[in-house]
């Protein structure tokens, strides 16, 4: 529980006060005026520095700009007072010790999510790519699924490639996975049975599609080269038709033959595993690639992209390639995207708390049975969540003790929960107590 909350309404409100500052417009006094102003600015800086231990940098910055806007009409004393008021207001808005921020976060995200369920389906399928949005996506994120149901990457390009559609296409070709079957128009199989061994001798005739070859930037020789790397397969070209490639092999039976055929068609010609489709989009004045499928690790190594901005919606991949802090950031961004997309106004601090809880142990844990809730210290709290009997049995078998430090377990045994005023313990030393009648 480390959430800090501040309402930011208050800072720098006191602009209305005009009072004591002398408006010395006369030309002769100009030098004195600037000296006084710079004195005020110095004073503001000094005061801001004093509160910089307490206030976060963004508030300091806001105070500074607001104060400098009104520097002509305020005095040093007023400036000090504004800054002091901002400091007090900030301290007033911090989370109190023992405030159940987790529960508040859960409620604050849970309530708007009920609105989402009803509306989500109408929003599905925007743009060319079908993206999971709304509640299904939210569940996916907090469940920390290994792969999202619609993995998508946003690939930014480097300076050389971002301005030109043709250059962007060049990079797109490097990324999009192209298999033999993507560039063949059709394929035929000719099959003979070898009377001696009972094996099937067969040939797969691939008829290449010149349009697709051109589009994907693959040459015929490249296909032949890729195919000849396969074991037990002989590749030859048709002397009459340059767009026909013949691959022959031997199979034990028909299912085996089907498998070999699938292998031939599935040979990777270029691109990156897992990237099924690449779409070129224009964003502002640069071209950006959107992909269907995600493979962050390998895409980051592709020439022509901007690896510092390229990202994916697969949080698991981000965790493995960029680390836990990047995953935390990604969780916040993804949840925020979903909420914003649905027009729900949830304070980002709640989302940040969720991301903090999920990444606390150094790896992304789901909120649920196998993660945050399922690994609680307390037996009773775990039993109250899911699989009650199993948890109680296991704990009994191991002779575990419940220290009753959390909320759930104290509700179960009927004690005051350690939240809010419940965290305060009161001790009395009878020896020091005054006898009745004396004192107040």
């Amino acid at each position, binding site marked *: 529980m480390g959430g800090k909350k501040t309402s930011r309404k208050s800072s720098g409100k006191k602009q209305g006060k005009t009072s004591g500052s002398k408006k010395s417009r006369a030309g002769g006094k100009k030098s004195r005026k600037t000296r006084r102003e710079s004195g005020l600015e110095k004073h503001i800086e000094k005061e801001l520095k004093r509160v910089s231990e307490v206030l976060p*940098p963004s508030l300091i910055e806001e105070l500074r700009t607001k104060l400098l806007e009104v520097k002509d009409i305020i005095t040093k004393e007023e400036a000090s007072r504004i800054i002091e008021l901002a400091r007090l207001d900030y301290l007033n808005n911090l989370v109190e010790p023992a405030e159940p921020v987790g529960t508040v976060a859960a409620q604050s995200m849970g309530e708007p999510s009920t609105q989402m369920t009803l509306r989500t389906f109408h929003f599905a399928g925007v743009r060319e790519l079908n993206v999971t949005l709304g509640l299904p996506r939210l569940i996916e994120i907090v469940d920390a699924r290994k792969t999202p149901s619609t993995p998508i990457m946003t690939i930014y390009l480097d300076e050389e490639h971002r301005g030109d559609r043709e250059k962007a296409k060049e990079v797109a070709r490097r990324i999009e996975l192209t298999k033999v079957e993507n560039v063949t128009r059709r394929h035929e199989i000719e099959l003979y049975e070898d009377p001696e061994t009972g094996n099937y001798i067969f040939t797969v005739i691939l008829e290449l599609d010149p349009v697709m070859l051109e589009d994907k930037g693959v040459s015929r020789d490249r296909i032949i080269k890729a195919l000849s790397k396969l074991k037990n397969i002989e590749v030859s070209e048709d002397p009459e038709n340059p767009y026909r490639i013949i691959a022959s092999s031997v199979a034990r039976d028909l299912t085996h033959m089907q498998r070999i055929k699938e292998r031939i068609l599935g040979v990777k010609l270029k691109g990156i595993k897992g990237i099924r489709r690449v779409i070129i989009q224009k964003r502002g004045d640069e071209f950006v690639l959107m992909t269907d499928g995600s493979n962050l690790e390998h895409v980051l190594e592709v020439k022509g992209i901007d690896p510092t901005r390229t*990202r994916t919606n697969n949080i698991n991949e981000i965790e493995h390639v960029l680390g836990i802090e990047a995953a935390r950031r990604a969780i916040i961004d993804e949840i925020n995207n979903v909420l914003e997309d649905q027009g729900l106004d949830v304070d980002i601090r709640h989302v940040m708390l969720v991301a903090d809880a999920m990444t606390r142990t150094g790896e992304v844990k789901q909120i649920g049975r196998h993660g945050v809730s399922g690994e609680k210290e307390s037996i009773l709290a775990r039993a109250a969540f899911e699989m009650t009997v199993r948890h109680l049995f296991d704990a009994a078998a191991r002779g575990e003790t419940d220290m009753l430090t959390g909320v759930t377990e104290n509700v179960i045994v009927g004690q005051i929960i350690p939240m809010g005023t419940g965290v305060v313990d009161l001790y009395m030393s009878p020896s020091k107590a005054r006898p009745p009648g004396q004192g107040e």
Partner: protein
Amino acid sequence: MVTRFNVLDHELVPKHEVLKPSEAVEVLRKLGTTPDKLPWIRASDPVARAIGAKPGDIVKITRRSPTAGVSIAYRFVIAG
């Protein structure tokens, strides 16, 4: 693959620094906590490896925060 991309350059990755033992003690004193109660980061984490953090270290993370501008967090490096 000529030069491998440095994960520290990615916009999602905030600045990580390994604290010197003296700084670490100071931080723990200020927060009034023990290392194991900080959030963790694994020694096998790509960023932890990139900055050479060893189990037992404390890593200072300077995040860009939408609410505070800049916020500082600490993670305790654990084995694994």
